């Protein structure tokens, strides 16, 4: 880890020039640079700070039409943040530019990432899979580029696969599961049955729930897997099927207080509430759901960001939007505070001891320096509103109560490189 530092510094020095928007001549790009733009600008002109957004997208379905992911999920949050940054930037002589690059869900992102680098993007928000992120992380590090993961909740990216130049704004599955578990324990509903979907990501969330049970004194009394056999959506005949299917499926679970569901793939989870064999609340990916943000949150100045977001995008703000907003605001905050567009100064500031941002979550949010995960409260809500936010009262920590959520420093497997 140490040996890479001098190289990194040298590259940052080069970036100083790039950040004031002089063509990045130092970078030995394999292909010819695009037509040279005038390198010298009038002294009065604002300094440009380019923020890239790399997104792997495919349309996905949800069991309820109300839950269909909007086409611009995430991107809309970054757009609002860049507008916010530019309002502040108008007083600082700074202009922020957002450049969104979208690829197919499972595409190779390495070549497109090179193009983003060539365009002078020093900060890239990513909403891509773990393999995609790992395919560009080291390359980004060597080019002095900071990545901000806004859409991926894999714990592995913060643990065994952590990288020094990847800041994680989205919460991990373990943070989400811990936030949920704390509330259920606080409610004194400690016995949980768990139904897991058959896809990989469902299993990852189930693992996070099992870990949370162990940490906070919950007990998983029984488990079942729901195999995805291409279940019908809730159409005319579907609803009759589902109404019969779900009670029978949950009939043989041992007695429990809460039914946990791990179905990130949206195959069956949303069909569980009110259809269980015994009357029990549902939580996890359906029922009461832990999230980074809630579209109905109005606390802590939330009404303002929600209004601003709704005016800009015509819909309510979702978790991915909030993570992207926060990421772009972190870059903006660092540029404001350092009064600079110097990439090294901005990075040093973000990595500095006192760094925090206000992000409508009732307290400043900061980074865990051991893996660059953003500390943040977890919202627990249903489709209508916020039920509570975790950490719950009474879950104490010697550093920050937010570190009761997710993998803590003593247990981390992350070795930053």
């Amino acid at each position, binding site marked *: 880890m140490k040996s890479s530092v001098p190289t990194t510094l040298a590259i940052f020095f080069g970036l100083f020039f790039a950040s004031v928007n002089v063509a990045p001549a130092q970078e030995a790009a394999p292909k010819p640079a695009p037509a040279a733009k005038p390198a010298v600008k009038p002294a009065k002109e604002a300094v440009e700070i380019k923020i890239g957004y790399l997104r792997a997208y495919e349309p996905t379905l949800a069991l309820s039409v109300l839950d269909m992911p909007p086409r611009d999920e995430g991107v809309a949050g970054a757009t609002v943040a860049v507008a*916010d940054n530019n*309002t*502040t930037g*108008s*007083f*600082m002589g700074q202009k922020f530019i957002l450049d969104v690059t979208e690829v197919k869900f499972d595409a190779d992102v390495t070549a497109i990432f090179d193009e983003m680098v060539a365009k002078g993007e020093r900060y890239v928000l990513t909403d891509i899979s773990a393999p995609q992120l790992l395919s560009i992380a080291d390359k980004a590090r060597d080019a002095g580029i900071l990545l901000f993961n806004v859409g991926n909740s894999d714990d592995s990216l913060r643990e065994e696969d952590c990288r020094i130049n990847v800041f994680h704004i989205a919460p991990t599955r373990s943070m989400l599961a811990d936030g949920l578990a704390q509330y259920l324990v606080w409610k004194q509903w400690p016995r949980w049955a768990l139904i897991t979907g058959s896809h990989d990501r469902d299993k990852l969330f189930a693992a996070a729930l099992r870990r949370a049970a162990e940490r906070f004194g919950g007990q998983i009394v029984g488990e079942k897997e729901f195999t995805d056999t291409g279940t019908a959506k809730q159409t005319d005949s579907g609803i009759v099927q589902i109404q019969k299917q779900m009670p029978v499926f949950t009939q043989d679970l041992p007695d429990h207080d809460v039914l946990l569901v791990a179905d990130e793939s949206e195959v069956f989870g949303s069909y569980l509430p009110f259809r269980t064999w015994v009357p029990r609340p549902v939580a996890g990916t359906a029922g009461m759901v832990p999230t980074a943000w809630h579209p109905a949150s109005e606390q802590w*100045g939330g009404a*303002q960001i929600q*209004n*601003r977001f709704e*005016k800009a995008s015509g819909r309510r703000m979702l978790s991915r939007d909030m993570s992207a907003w926060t990421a772009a*605001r972190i870059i903006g*905050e660092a540029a*404001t*505070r350092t009064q600079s567009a110097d990439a090294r100064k901005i990075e040093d500031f973000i990595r500095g001891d006192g760094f*925090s*941002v*206000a992000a409508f979550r*009732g*307290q*400043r949010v900061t980074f865990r320096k051991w893996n660059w995960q953003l500390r943040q409260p977890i919202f627990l809500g249903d489709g209508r509103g916020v039920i509570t936010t975790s950490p719950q009262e009474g879950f104490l920590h010697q550093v920050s*109560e937010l570190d009761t959520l997710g993998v803590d420093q003593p247990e981390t497997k992350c070795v930053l490189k």
Partner: protein
Amino acid sequence: MRNRSIALAGGLLTLLAASPASAFMAYVSNEKDNTVSVVDTATMQVVKTIKTGQRPRGITISHDGKFVYLCASDDDTIEIIDTATGEIVGSLPSGPDPELFVLSPDGKMLYVANEDDNLVTVIDIESKAVVTEIPVGVEPEGMGISPDGKVMVNTSETTNMAHFIDTTTHEIVNNVLVDARPRFVEFTPDGKQAWVSAEIGGTVSVIDNASREVVHKVTFEIPGLRAESIQPVGLRITADGKKAYVALGPANRVAVVNTETFEVEKYILVGQRVWQLAFTPGQKQVITTNGVSNDITFIDVETDEPVQSVTVGSLPWGVAVSPK
């Protein structure tokens, strides 16, 4: 006609009831139930509840005490309440989502923060006309004005700046970076300093009005409370310039700060989520609005002891007290 005479009689009764020595009326905006509670400061009782527009927040009173101005944020207007009748008698064109405002020392101009539109709107009260709109940072909130009326300060909650605005040219002359989510601005009576609270930063920045630089940061520490729960919001400085009262939000306390040493001399426990503050005329008392416990607390300025809490409406936000 009949309605009017009843209202007049009501006003008269209020006046009569208020006649004992040093009785003033405190007007409390209740954000959640769209009302203003009128509290007699001598008897410490609610004497009237006025229905208002939606989401009433910022509240102030004309220097002659005749009119209360109220930001009805969700109605995008400022309502004018006649204090004699308790009726809404007009409105001012505030621009969208007015949250807080400040009256010029001569009482002629109202400077309004439009939270959703990154603007400060300047309104001429007599003509009820918008004089100009001044673009500021993201989520403008706090509004303060120097005692000589020459400079006005707006804080922007997401930009984290105090914008100093020349009231003659209506142009920003200085932008001063402060800590996160700056909420409120109050000048010292001598006009030499502007104090700016930062809710999420947890500090109060003291800005020198000559150099326009932060010369000191007041910090707070309460045993047994997490630093994150100490969130400075409302702020008032005594007329003699010696003490500053700072409402600390979810810390449920008001800090008393010595303006010479910048040290906190006392934390006064009041209601939950203490938000804004106002002195009674003569400054014998300071009144706090406690949003979550739905009450206001009277603090004795001489002893800095809480005297009494009075239940008002739902989510009390701001408070203004009649000058006589």
